[in-house]
């Protein structure tokens, strides 16, 4: 693959790079900032983010979304998914996304149900 085959824009064209090397460093800086935000939030756990949103703490939603953002940039820019054909990209990405989303939903639903049985049933664990 020649150098000019790389797509050198991130954030939908908001940031443009002159060369692939420059883009790599740019993405590194972005990923480092995201990790730093995660670590700072993880240490201080601001009280304001401890509210429940859709069954989970807002802070945990932020962590999960930031993780998916990081995963996106690692796959798209470090693994060059951005430069592959859309058909190939979809083949790889959507297979994983669908199967993992399904598995997560079904398993976590079951885990929550069992927790409910433990909590409201007649199972004693604290003795």
């Amino acid at each position, binding site marked *: 693959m020649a150098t000019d085959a790389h797509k050198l824009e991130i954030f939908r064209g908001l940031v443009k790079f002159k060369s692939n090397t420059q883009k*790599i460093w740019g993405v590194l800086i972005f990923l480092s900032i995201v990790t*730093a935000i995660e*670590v700072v939030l993880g240490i201080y756990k601001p009280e304001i983010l401890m509210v429940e949103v859709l069954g989970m703490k807002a802070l945990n939603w932020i962590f999960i979304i930031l993780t998916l953002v990081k995963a996106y940039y690692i796959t798209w820019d*470090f693994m060059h998914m951005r430069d592959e054909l859309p058909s190939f990209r979809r083949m790889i990405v959507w297979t994983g996304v669908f*199967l993992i989303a399904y598995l997560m939903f079904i398993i976590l639903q079951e885990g929550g149900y069992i927790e409910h049985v433990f909590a409201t049933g007649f199972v004693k664990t604290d003795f």
Partner: protein
Amino acid sequence: MDTTVVKPSAENKRWGGGTEPLKTSYGKMMMWFFITSDALTFAGFLAAYGFSRFKFADSWPIADNVFTHVPFIHGNYPMIFVAFMTFILIMSSVTMVLAVDAGHHKNKAKVTLYMFLTILGGLIFVGSQAYEWSTFIKGTYGAVATNGGNILHVMDGNGNQVALKDFAISQGSDREQHISRSGLWFTSETALPSYTFEEVLAGFKANPELVVRTTYTGEDGHKTMLSRSESLRELETKGKTIVEGANLKHNEYGPPLFANYFFFITGFHGFHVSIGIMLNIIIFFNVLIGTYERRGSYEMVEKVGLYWHFVDLVWVFVFTFFYLV
């Protein structure tokens, strides 16, 4: 027959005849397929972890109370070391992608340098993981296990955890480890904890500032602390054994399942990193002796690079679900 047999002409041979389906070489496509299936494996592990965590939602340990160590420094520093590990792995991912980029420009010297740095980053990461495991297995404070298998931590008045060795009072017990050589030959037991439950209880009674932290998470997201009188009653009525450190059966931080998942998932990831380092070393030497120079393409660096980035990708998720959420 002519209509059913595929003729071996250049048009029909996909990879062999110069055309590449989806404009991707065979090796690269198969590496991507492997990565997809491996991603599903890790997703299965993390989903299982989530299942158990949902199941034991109120007694699951809080990561900030467990992973607090930084090498060469004493004290309580949650998150710092694991953030360092994450940064090392992202950094080695960057040097890997720089090596791939240098490969596109057929710049042998740069590929060599960047491959070397990638291997170095991988080794630092695996070393850090070994440290993480060793402190986790050894444990710091020790805990009391109840009849039901719950874990009780001992805290001082300021909310800091106290190690059992700092207050246990010897009761002159002469209980020895049962080894088959000096006892019944057909059975034996694992090493005994340094203190018996009676010694810890006596020490607890003698130090009026000590209280108990239960395994249950309260409304505020912290583990529930008991008052002094509740603590005494909790220890006397429920306390049974002493747990020090963590292994597959006992775990001083919380439910044994937590330790099992920790060993299994970070272990499986560490295994992937080790394999990645080995592949990187092979590629590194191939670059050095000029294999890819002669072949006219550094695509092999790219394929192994895909694997290496995948390892980084998995760590991003392990980091979130083990240490943050």
